[in-house]
């Protein structure tokens, strides 16, 4: 038996060698990655040991940290929950973070270099370092108006200040409550997360305002871009363009009709009338006449086919926005469809607001931004946002002519729902087909000017809202603009 006894010692050696080898793997080769794993409670404790900065709208917090006295000391609360969720995002123990919580993290958690001097003084005075506060550009009244108007529906709305690019309202519906995601209880977090249908990509966590789950075909709002291209190529609002009750492109494809027979049955209508009444045949022919390159070129000057982010103050990386696209139409039929916002054209509500804003602002398009100011714990400004000109897609002259046409849309055309007493309001409605027999998307892009001063531009999107979608979207756009104007 001694021989096998000694051999069993060999088995023991093998077992211990395996243990030691594995220990080398864990404590030497993987030591660093394990220690730096975000689940490391030592890192978590540190991260939750100081309060994150508050995210503010005006003087009110929309995200703040509260001392729980627990092992993870500070918990995040979102007093306006769903209404601001597409902006604040969430920060979670399990699922990382999104929104401002993610893209201004270095400021909120106090690690940004900008905050170095304050941190030094905190060290000297023995104060526990807190993160910096983030002041948003959001106008609380406009945000409330947008949220109340969209609640219960599927869609999104964005309002911007045309002169500066400040985002005044940004709402997505349905939305999600970020509070349970910021809980310190694993089960609560996961239950909420799963109820938000994270895998579908178009659930409540999809930020539709920035194109999450989309972008979507813009329908007739595309006619604004086609009009801009025409106006810069010798056309005027009173130029007659060929229209008619139907249009069959030369290379076949679907015949194009108007929404109802009463729209532009004449052979010729003016550009203004074509836009005012949303004449499909007129704009399809116009697009074909101008050519795909001309229209796409104009669209790209407005921002389509370009990736975009909303700039932040704390880091180089901005908040990403889905790319709006023109598609690559070949042949008259596809160009015609594209000219009325079908085929492969797709936009985000933010892009629509930017286009309307450029028209309102004499052709100057501003880069939209969401963070106005980074503030120290004493609310003093540490860094303030700078306005950036995005581009000049159209001349002031073209913008003026385009406004004449878009004002007509609201005063006497399809966009009457957006009228505001005593205010110059212009815009364009859109109804976009997508898929066979699915209810249409409703769109509205518009602006309001007070005595020639551009005040607000909006982009409103109602997903699969059906025939009444564009009218409702126009109503919502008007409500938001009223809120911004204080009417």
């Amino acid at each position, binding site marked *: *038996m001694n021989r096998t006894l000694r051999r069993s010692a060999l088995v023991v050696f093998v077992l*211990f060698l395996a243990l030691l080898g594995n*220990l080398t793997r*864990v*404590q030497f080769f993987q030591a660093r990655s*394990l*220690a730096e794993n975000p*689940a490391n409670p030592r890192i978590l404790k540190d991260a939750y040991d100081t309060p994150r900065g508050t995210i503010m709208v005006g003087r009110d917090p929309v995200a703040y940290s509260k001392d729980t006295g627990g092992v993870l000391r500070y918990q995040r609360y979102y007093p306006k929950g769903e209404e601001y969720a597409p902006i604040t995002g969430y920060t979670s123990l399990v699922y990382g973070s999104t929104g401002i919580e993610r893209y201004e993290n270095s400021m909120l958690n106090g690690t940004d270099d900008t905050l170095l001097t304050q941190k030094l003084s905190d060290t000297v005075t023995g104060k526990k370092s807190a993160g910096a506060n983030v002041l948003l550009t959001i106008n609380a009244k406009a945000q409330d108006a947008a949220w109340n108007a969209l609640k219960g529906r599927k869609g999104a709305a964005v309002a911007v200040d045309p002169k500066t690019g400040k985002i005044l309202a940004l709402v997505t519906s349905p939305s999600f409550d970020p509070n349970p995601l910021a809980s310190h209880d694993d089960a609560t977090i996961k239950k909420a997360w799963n109820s938000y249908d994270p895998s579908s990509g178009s659930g409540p966590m999809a930020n539709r305002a920035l194109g999450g789950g989309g972008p979507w075909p813009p329908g007739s709002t595309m006619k604004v871009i086609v009009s801009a291209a025409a106006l810069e190529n010798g056309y005027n609002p009173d130029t007659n363009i060929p229209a008619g009750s139907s249009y069959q492109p030369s290379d076949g494809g679907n015949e194009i009709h108007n929404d109802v027979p009463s729209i532009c049955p004449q052979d010729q209508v003016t550009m203004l009338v074509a836009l005012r009444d949303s004449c499909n045949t007129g704009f399809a022919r116009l697009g074909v006449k101008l050519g795909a390159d001309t229209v796409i070129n104009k669209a790209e000057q407005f921002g389509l086919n370009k990736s975009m982010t909303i700039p932040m103050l704390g880091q180089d990386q901005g908040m990403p926005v889905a790319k709006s696209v023109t598609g690559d139409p070949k042949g008259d039929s596809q160009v015609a469809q594209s000219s009325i916002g079908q085929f492969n054209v797709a936009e985000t509500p933010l892009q629509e607001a930017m286009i309307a804003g450029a028209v309102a602002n004499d052709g100057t398009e501003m880069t939209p931004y969401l963070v106005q100011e980074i503030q120290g714990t004493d609310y003093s400004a540490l860094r303030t946002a700078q306005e950036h000109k995005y581009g000049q897609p159209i001349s002031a002259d073209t913008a003026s002519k385009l406004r004449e046409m878009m004002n007509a849309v609201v005063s006497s055309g399809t966009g009457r729902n957006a009228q505001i007493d005593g205010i110059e309001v212009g815009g364009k409605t859109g109804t976009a087909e997508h898929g066979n027999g699915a209810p249409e998307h409703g769109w509205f892009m518009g602006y309001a000017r007070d005595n020639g001063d551009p005040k607000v531009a909006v982009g409103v999107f109602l997903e699969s809202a059906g025939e009444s979608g564009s009218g409702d979207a126009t109503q919502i756009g008007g409500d938001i603009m009223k809120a911004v104007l204080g009417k």
Partner: protein
Amino acid sequence: MTSPNLAYPTATPSGAAAGGRARTGRNTELLLLLFGFVITVVLSAASEGALIDTIRLDSLVLPFLVLLLGLLAHVLVRIFAPYADPVLLPLAMLINGIGVVVIHRVDVPSETDDSFSKFATIGPFDGLGVQQVLWSGVAVVCFCIVLAVVRDHRTLSRYAYTLGLVGIVLVAIPALLPGRFSEVNNAKVWITIPGVASVQPGEFAKLALFVFFAYYLVRKREVLSLASKRVLGIEFPRPRDLGPVLVVWVLSVLILVVEKDLGSSLLYLGTFVVMLYIATERRSWLIIGAILFGFGAVVAYSLGTWLGPFRNFHDRVNFWLDPMSDPLGNTYQLSRSLISLGVGGLLGTGPGAGDPTSVPLPRSDFIVATIGEELGMFGLTALLLVYLLIVLRGVKAGTMARDPFGKLLAAGLAFSVALQVFVIVGGVTDLIPLTGLTTPFLSYGGSSLVANWILIAMLIRISNDSRAPGQVTGGGRGNPPPQLQSVATEVIKL
């Protein structure tokens, strides 16, 4: 087949000196005990120094109490087993002392806690450290009783069947009791009298079962080593002789399913198969054991996707495969353990500088992670080498034993320590799926300490017998049981 190293040294065992007084090694044992005490004191003082920036005499108290227990055991060994292996007791006592210090340390809040100010008020008798010393006291007393009562390990073989029955009953009780009397942390391995005490009968069952295994295998080794077929050059036993190994296999599967105790299941099956191999000298038993185990594991894993009783095992395998997949939920325990080990790295954070409460059960199941964080890979390696030494001294006691029952029992006991350390340390470090075994001598808890000290007492008893000078077996006390007296020390095989 016979080979030279089978020739058993029946003449002078190594411990016996020619003429005059035999070398007992007792003074070596005393010296080693003191050396272990020094290590424990240094660890305790360093922990306290890191935690409260001063080192109080208080930090000596617990190590000193452990030393006293060691000295008590030492005196008893001098009286009842004077020729015993001098290394076993100090090594086990060293690990026991480290356990006490670490358990006490876990109860001291660390600097990062807000309860920092509580430091200075934590005395040596606060927390569970002193409780562990009490358990150690009970364990050492049991150690002494076993040494004093069992003067010859062969006596045990007389009660082999009784012990075997006791073992099975002990294993079965938690399974039969309703959950609230037997289930803690999702393992049904306890006997709990609510509000009074709880015992892990499996810790004792393993001792009883290994005695039975040793006895049974010594009697049946001839039959079990008969070969029938050669496959790939390895002789396999007759199918009808597969009975016992199948019984143990079924038993271990039942433990796995009913008690959700993968660790014990592995421990029984593994130890039995290795004892079977040692007894019969047939490699084929190892292969059969491995196949049965592998088959059981694969079947249990696949059944686990839809059959309730196997789900626990199925889940554990998945967590093992991807321990960082759900660090706040399902893989909370394992990921925390691995992160602690990673933070420790090669050298550790230093005693007292870690964050032991970040790991669940830092005093019992995950005490190895606690140590791995503060003492690093080098510290854990040293600890594992101490275990390895204990096992090898046990195996040595087996090779030197003069009777096959003693050989096999020593080997089984020693190997079970190795396997237990492998299963729990392997589990905590993600080498194998995590199971809930205790770490011998280290984990907080009375059952485990008492059982393992009895195990050491048995090894010391066997080693005393083999190292005692001259032909006097069993220290000259008592008569060897008749049925084993006649068994030849070594049987020459085919």
